[in-house]
């Protein structure tokens, strides 16, 4: 479980996150939703340690990430798998080398052991036998799947995804969403997905936190989301005419 307590974050005079507290539960796909500029990317970057906080706590199963020393921080980071919006694959490496990279850096496994693990991960994301493709040869959906494979290769306890289906067609986006949910359930890990895609919300939203103007204004499941009476949330979720009509019905 990942818990954030009373988090504040400002950039100069701009108070981006205002005293945010929330629990991201284990074995669930936790979604952070919100408009662009609402602070959800900042929150995710705080969770993965790319931004320092002004005050508050970021607890990974009780371990406060912000107060760990460099060595322990690095250890904890190896338990976190991250899927970036643009994939963040190393373009000078092949698919196999990209996925193998964390194993090479942090384990003393033999090449055969590492290759076995890479092949298992590639099979898990339905990209078997694509080991030697270069990053430039991959489609948008394949980039995301290779990124997922790299994120899970160290068998992380926490999986954090930043807009995993941005730039993908709806069908591929759902495949990626389902893949994330399946991995979460199979491995019983804590997954956080940062998104503003309503298809994702309806597909995998087991626990949803809605951020608006730096504050968590609402939280609940996708079923509760449909029935909610929060005006700000409804304006965001049911922004299109189609969704508004569906909500009325």
């Amino acid at each position, binding site marked *: 479980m990942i818990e954030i307590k009373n988090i504040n974050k400002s950039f100069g005079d701009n108070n981006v996150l205002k005293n945010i507290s929330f629990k991201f539960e284990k074995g669930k796909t936790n979604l952070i939703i919100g408009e662009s500029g609402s602070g959800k990317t900042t929150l995710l970057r705080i969770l993965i340690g790319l931004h320092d906080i002004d005050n508050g706590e970021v607890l990974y199963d009780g371990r406060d990430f912000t107060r760990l020393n460099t060595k322990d921080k690095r250890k904890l980071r190896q338990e976190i798998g991250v899927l970036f919006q643009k994939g963040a694959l190393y373009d000078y490496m092949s698919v196999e080398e990209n996925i193998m990279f964390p194993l090479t*850096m*942090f384990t003393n496994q033999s090449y055969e052991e590492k290759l076995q693990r890479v092949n298992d991960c590639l099979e898990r994301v339905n990209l078997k036998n694509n080991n030697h493709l270069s990053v430039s040869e991959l489609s948008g959906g394949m980039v995301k799947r290779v990124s997922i494979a790299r994120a899970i290769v160290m068998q992380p306890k926490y999986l954090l995804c930043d807009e995993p289906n941005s730039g993908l067609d709806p069908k591929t986006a759902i495949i990626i969403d389902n893949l994330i949910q399946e991995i979460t359930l199979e491995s019983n890990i804590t997954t956080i997905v940062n998104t503003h895609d309503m298809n994702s919300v309806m597909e995998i939203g087991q626990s949803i936190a809605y951020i608006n103007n730096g504050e968590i204004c609402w939280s609940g499941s996708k079923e509760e989301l449909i029935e909610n009476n929060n005006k700000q949330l409804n304006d965001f979720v049911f922004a299109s005419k189609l969704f508004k009509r569906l909500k009325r019905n």
Partner: protein
Amino acid sequence: MRKLLKQLGQYFIMMSKVFSMPEKKNIFFKKLSLELEKIGLDSLGIVTIISFFIGAVVSIQTAFNFESPLFPKYLIGYATRESLILEFCPTMLSLILAGKVGSNIASEIGSMRITEQIDALEIMGVNSASFLILPKLFAAVLFFPILIILGISIGIVGGWIGCQTAGITAADYIYGIKYEFNSFYVTYCLIKTTVFAFIIATVSSYFGYHTKGGALEVGKASTRAVVYSSIIILIFNFILTDLLLA
């Protein structure tokens, strides 16, 4: 002034991260061999061409200016050698390498920054500054002196060809090349080159590593890397010359 101090602070913080033991030595050496190829071997062509023509032009210009019976002919070879060793090869070639290698380093690291590849390294627990910059720094510091020594040799050959067109005999030119040779000048040249290599690798890495924004910013970072590296090289050229020769 405040911005300059901030950049200086960021540079030293980055350098403190760069100088840490590589996490996996085999990966470091693999990356070092790749950088030696990219930074060193791939610069052989441009160094060869520039050195050859600089040598040729220096000897022709010297011959043109020494067209007096008071000056012995061998002075053309002597002046060519001294110019190449003292200034043209270490400083001019370093400025050219700042353009070629420096822009390459800044744009490569800058692209990695804007595509979140550096963030991905950090999140995995990898010291990204050391992982990315240290092999480039080692490659530059190890290979630039080799390039400069090669440049001096090729420049001397170019000077000899230039002398042929200016009517100076090979015997006079070679006598001049050997005349009053001071080996400390080579040491001075190598010290300068090593310092310039350090400046090019680290200043360019700094601008790439601190890139923010998109593709446009990568281009700007690349330009800044070349401009700042060149200016710092010229400043250090003055300081080192004053310290070592004055």
